[in-house]
């Protein structure tokens, strides 16, 4: 890292890029009445340096949003995943409006719930049934309870660095509000490590209820990793042999890589798949789908919520899935992602930097490798954001079908300007 004063120099004071006085004023108001001001993954900590990022937005359409200071951004976080078709998608919004004009949250379930479940069972090859909730964690919890109900066992195997929501059993030890009992029955193993899985299964023979993992490894603050050749085949074989329920958390990647679930892209068949984020293009809904042999067990688990029967989001989800199919969205997202990422890598190279792309092109993770501390990357993302391309440095990005050729060109221009700025400030890298 360079000297502190240089690191902390606020380029906004030099008149370059956006400034956010209204966002800051709102945050101050928020802090008086909301602990932390903005909580969870929308909170300020991942925005490094924070003065480069807006905190409040009041308008969004297509691939773009506008902050409360009136700056417009090409959005590569897509609400951290849900906006797969872009903001204000007319097809989805119309389906939602039509449904809520009839009914939304009510005393009885709406017919659209059955229609959506039938459509999911048709779309997702492993799905013999579907269950709906609101957030990803609702269905990762249900999946784990189902695994325990089906096996009568306690342990859950998960991947180190894998994220499955903020329920205590899935948080890392040491976070506030947790007790050691919360993680007693969760065993973490490294990604792509079949030997570790084999060892844990043998050491806990007869006590492992389920294995939960994303279809590929997309942790935060680290390069994303695809499954090694043969990995999923071997995992499937081991889990079957030990009678362990195989759960795929497709909350983040679901419908981005393959409409039948990301497992279809990688050629394997889990027992349960958790979906959320993209399924409703921003309307709050999640789904657990599963195989016939677990129908009885999931049916015995009591799991519900006041708003889980909302018909509007179900209609939106049905419209989203049909629209994704009509567009062949996974192919389109891959193509758009590749175009953007190839361009970025070239722009970086022209400034003497190495921009490493990992994960899948439709939800890539990027990192400037010239600085192991990530500082250079943080400042580059910040400079891009302050010029109108919204990136965070710690998390994978999301491509939507609303991103256009014009967006890509504009983004590459912004990247170029941002690289020029960090080159001027930091040189070739940070020692």
């Amino acid at each position, binding site marked *: *890292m360079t000297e*502190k004063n240089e*690191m*902390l120099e606020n380029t906004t004071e030099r008149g370059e890029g956006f400034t956010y006085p209204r966002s*800051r004023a709102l*945050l*101050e108001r928020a*802090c008086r009445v909301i*602990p*932390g*001001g*903005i*909580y969870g993954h929308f*909170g*300020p*900590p*991942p*925005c*490094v*340096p*924070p*003065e480069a990022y807006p*905190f409040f937005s009041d308008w969004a359409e297509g691939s773009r949003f506008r902050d409360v200071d009136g700056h417009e951004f090409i959005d590569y976080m897509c609400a951290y995943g849900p906006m797969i078709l872009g903001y204000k998608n007319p097809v989805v919004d119309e389906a939602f409006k039509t449904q809520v004009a009839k009914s939304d949250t009510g005393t009885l379930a709406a017919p659209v719930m059955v229609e959506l479940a039938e459509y999911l069972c048709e779309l997702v090859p492993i799905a013999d049934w579907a269950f709906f909730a609101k957030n990803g964690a609702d269905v990762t919890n249900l999946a784990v309870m189902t695994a325990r109900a089906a096996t009568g066992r306690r342990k859950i195997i998960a991947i180190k660095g894998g994220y499955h929501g903020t329920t205590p059993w899935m948080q*890392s*030890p*040491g*976070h*506030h509000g947790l007790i*050691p009992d919360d993680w007693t029955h969760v065993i973490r193993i490294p990604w792509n490590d079949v030997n570790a899985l084999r060892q844990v299964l043998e050491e806990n023979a007869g006590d492992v209820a389920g294995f939960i993992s994303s279809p590929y490894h997309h942790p935060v*603050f680290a390069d994303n990793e695809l499954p090694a050749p043969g990995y999923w085949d071997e995992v499937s074989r081991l889990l079957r042999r030990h009678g362990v329920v195989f759960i795929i958390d497709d909350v983040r990647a679901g419908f981005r890589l393959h409409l039948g679930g990301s497992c279809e892209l990688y050629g394997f068949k889990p027992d349960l798949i958790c979906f959320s984020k993209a399924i409703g293009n921003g309307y709050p809904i999640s789904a657990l789908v599963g195989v016939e042999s677990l129908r009885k067990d999931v049916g015995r688990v009591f799991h519900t919520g006041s708003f889980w029967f909302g018909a509007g989001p179900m209609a939106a989800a049905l419209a989203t899935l049909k629209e994704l199919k009509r567009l062949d969205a996974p192919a389109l997202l891959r193509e758009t992602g590749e175009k953007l990422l190839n361009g970025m890598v070239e722009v970086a190279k022209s400034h003497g930097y190495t921009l490493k792309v990992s994960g899948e092109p439709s939800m890539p993770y990027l990192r400037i490798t010239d600085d*192991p*501390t*990530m*500082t250079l990357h*943080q400042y580059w993302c910040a400079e891009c954001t302050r010029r109108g391309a919204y990136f965070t440095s*710690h998390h994978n990005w999301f491509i939507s079908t609303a991103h256009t050729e014009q967006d890509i060109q504009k983004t590459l221009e912004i990247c170029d300007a941002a690289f020029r700025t960090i080159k001027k400030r930091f040189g070739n890298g940070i020692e």
Partner: protein
Amino acid sequence: MGADILQARLNLEVVLGLLAEVANTDPLFRERSRTWRETTWFKALGGPEGWIRFSPDGASHGIGKPEGVTIGLVLLSAIHLNRMFRNEGLPPVPVKGIGRLSFLKKEFTELGTRLQTLTRPGITLRSKEEEHLSTRLMLNAAVRAVPVLAEEEGTCAKLAAATPEGVLEIATLDGAFSGWIRKEGGRFTAGLGKPERVTARMLFRDLDAARIVLTGKETGFAAIGLGLTRIEGLIPLVDNVSLIMDRLERYLA
């Protein structure tokens, strides 16, 4: 026993350090403590040992047994040592300097009382200078405690194992405090001053901003957004060390 050893190490490695800091920087003790010529050694049987030295060059402290002990105190166990630090239970067994024990009863006790006053949660201090001293002590404690907690406390050990290697600088931008925590080869060390190499930074705008955060008037999230603090570099290093530091209040309230 594990919790007692942890507490004993915090007393010897953190509290003695804070006492030395008060002696060196508090206007009420700065001059006075330089007239003291005592090296006190504390030894818990079957547990840790540490020392604090007062000399015309200033106060210092360390672990183990030092050269030139003037007062040697043996405690029967870590529990006994911890009770002594709380002014409870049986007195320690003096193995050296029996004639100098009045120093412990008077000057050393006064210094301890002053430290308690400066670090008591919720207390209103008399001046900005006292507030700044109090804040430096809190930062000092947080930095020094991390290696002890990482080694001795179950949850912190899990956090420590998951923490990436590197050097975290913790400082105020006005230069009033600078410290560091290093994880290297799986072990944590910590110290005061500016580190040579930095992997991540947790920076407070100034001591007033640090006080707002350390006394819980703003959360860490809000403090970043409001410009009271900033973090940069290898954020998982900052995150995990912060969680370890947060657990200190369970032991040194």
